[in-house]
């Protein structure tokens, strides 16, 4: 079975600073990878996903993530954060192929952007 580890439960940063939210996964087969964002009192919204092809994936709101197969990582980055990026971020993995269409989520990283 696949699993996801988000290495930081909380990441505080100052506005306009760069940020990296780390995600590692374990799986014995090929995977699809996702990042979701959850703003306070809302559901989760898809930020970006990696299915195949280029390992650098660009998403909404200026976020990007890089798939590294050898490191089994899918870290999320933004070069300059805004106050409005304050939210919880979830990494998720699904097995590619077969009938297993469940996503497995990490426990989340709370990003707090301070003025």
């Amino acid at each position: 079975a696949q699993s996801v580890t988000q290495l930081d439960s909380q990441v505080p940063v100052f506005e306009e600073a760069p940020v990296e939210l780390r995600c590692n996964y374990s799986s014995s087969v090929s995977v699809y990878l996702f990042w979701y964002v959850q703003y306070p009192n809302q559901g989760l919204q898809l930020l970006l996903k990696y299915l195949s092809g280029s390992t650098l994936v660009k998403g909404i709101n200026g976020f990007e993530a890089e798939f590294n197969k050898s490191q089994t990582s899918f870290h999320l980055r933004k070069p300059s954060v805004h106050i409005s990026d304050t939210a919880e971020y979830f990494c998720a993995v699904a097995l590619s192929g077969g009938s297993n269409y469940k996503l497995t989520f990490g426990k989340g990283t709370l990003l707090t952007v301070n003025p």
Partner: protein
Amino acid sequence: DVKVTQSSRYLVKRTGEKVFLECVQDMDHENMFWYRQDPGLGLRLIYFSYDVKMKEKGDIPEGYSVSREKKERFSLILESASTNQTSMYLCASSRVGQGYGYTFGSGTRLTVV
């Protein structure tokens, strides 16, 4: 815009009550899911359904049941609510195929007193 709608944003119920959480999607998605979200524990899958009248247990099905009589509607049922079921409940749907990801509803915050 595609939508997953959860009928209540906030609910307060008493211990022992039977509770129904409703979820409707308008995207003709085959798959639907119920998660609960608790601080420090992330999202945990309760049940999912890949077709009408079909269901499978997730990681934490105890104390819950589900119903899917129509493709667009997936209900989560707490047979006898307990205080440890106080949580945020998230419904999601997806097309068949793992690459599509999920579309989530806004969540229902349930408090059992």
